[in-house]
């Protein structure tokens, strides 16, 4: 199919983009378009106006801030992030998650912030952003505000962004020294949307888990942080509480049946991948 008619404006600046977003028309923002274009082509969405921020140099950056955080502008592609020289050393969880997104051909156009703002329930980045305690920098005509990733993702394809909000930058703090990590997903074929996946960050101190974040995707409407499983792990070593972690996943997760997988398969995958990921993150702790 072809998109329904819309108007297109290449934003001249961030201010211009948010001014257009604050107007009366039903508008959507495009950067790489790897999520929006399929929606337009299938006519699942019919915006009146498409605002292109992909050419704004001020948003086209992947850089490390003075405080050591990774700043990813809204026009920066996933390929740009993977090419950053500091990414594998500082943010290996993020690099691994991004390398699981689609194919090189998709990552060459797709942006980090675009995937975060789109919030597909099967997407890698929302779960990864929560696991890494990322921060979203949001601009609107009302001003600039900042929210933690954990408050960003509210449901399938739904975020805390208001219709006139523009996600301008995602900030990933440097993980604590010695933190272990793991990213695992199951997809029918490489490059497909994951059926289920999990991102884990874990800190080991004195032979026990001192802190951890366990975030799954593909098991509900949005990325799901499993606080109860994290609490079971605290102060223990993963191998000793494996059954309790599994029990918490069984109690907390409630995946639905759909054309891609049954609820039972999703639950089994969630438990298997999470147990494996926790063990791997534990092993990676320095």
């Amino acid at each position, binding site marked *: *199919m072809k998109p329904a008619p819309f108007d297109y404006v*290449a934003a001249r600046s961030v201010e211009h983009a948010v001014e257009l977003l604050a107007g009366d028309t039903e508008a959507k923002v495009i950067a790489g378009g790897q999520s929006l*274009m*399929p929606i337009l082509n299938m006519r699942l969405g019919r915006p009146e106006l498409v605002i292109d921020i992909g050419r704004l140099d001020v948003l086209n950056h992947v850089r490390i801030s003075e405080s050591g955080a990774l700043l990813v502008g809204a026009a920066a592609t996933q390929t740009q992030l993977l090419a950053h020289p500091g990414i594998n050393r500082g943010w290996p969880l993020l690099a691994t998650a991004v390398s699981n997104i689609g*194919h090189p*051909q998709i990552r060459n*156009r797709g942006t980090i912030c675009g995937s975060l703002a789109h919030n597909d329930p099967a997407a890698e980045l929302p779960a990864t952003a929560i696991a890494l305690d990322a921060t979203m920098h949001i601009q609107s005509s009302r001003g600039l505000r900042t929210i933690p990733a954990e408050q960003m993702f509210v449901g399938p394809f739904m975020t805390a962004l208001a219709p006139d909000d523009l996600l301008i930058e995602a900030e990933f703090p440097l993980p604590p020294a010695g933190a272990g990590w793991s990213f695992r997903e199951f997809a029918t074929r*490489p*490059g497909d949307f994951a059926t289920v996946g999990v991102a884990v960050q874990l800190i080991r101190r004195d032979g026990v888990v001192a802190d951890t974040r366990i975030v799954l995707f593909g098991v509900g409407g949005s990325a799901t942080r499993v606080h109860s499983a994290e609490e079971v792990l605290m102060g223990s070593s993963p191998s000793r509480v494996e059954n309790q972690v599994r029990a918490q996943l069984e109690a907390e997760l409630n995946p639905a049946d759909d054309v891609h997988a049954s609820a039972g398969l999703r639950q089994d995958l969630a438990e298997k991948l999470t147990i494996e990921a926790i063990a791997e993150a534990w092993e990676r702790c320095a």
Partner: protein
Amino acid sequence: MSPRGGKGPIHPATPPLSEPSAWHDISLTVNDEQVSAQVESRLLLTDFLRHRLRLTGTHVGCEQGSCGACSVLLDGVVVRSCLTLAVQANGRDLRTVEGLAGPDDPLTTLQQAFHEQHGMQCGFCTPGFLMSLAGLAEDGGTPSSDEIDEHLTGNFCRCTGYVNIRKAARQAFGLPDPEEPSDG
């Protein structure tokens, strides 16, 4: 009409303007030729190439980014032209499968490898495979076997085993045949 072996700038005819507010003037380079045109906001880059420039080597498969048959190089980087608006190509440098070797030129190393290894099945996906690998070649250096396969997976189009395509890709980059057992 064709940016392949044409003379001077190309200005394809503009269809009747049904929604004047949503039209844009664009100019870009397509296969080393200057192209200027008026395009509707919603026109996909794929359809601009095929319908307006008559460059039908770029194929339309799924129109949702899955199959890769529409792959082109945008500023030297391989992208899905079905997930790119024509207006987004304004000012950019575009290369399609027609831009690899002209009708009277010898085949490129990549095309020759596909020819020699019979690197195709029904052939519908072939332009996309060629452009994905041309994009990989633009990165410079010799890619690893895994990098080649990762690029090939972006063009899977549901035929069969891709054995000859993998052979052709490796030949093009001077790597050993994946199906032949290596010595030692």
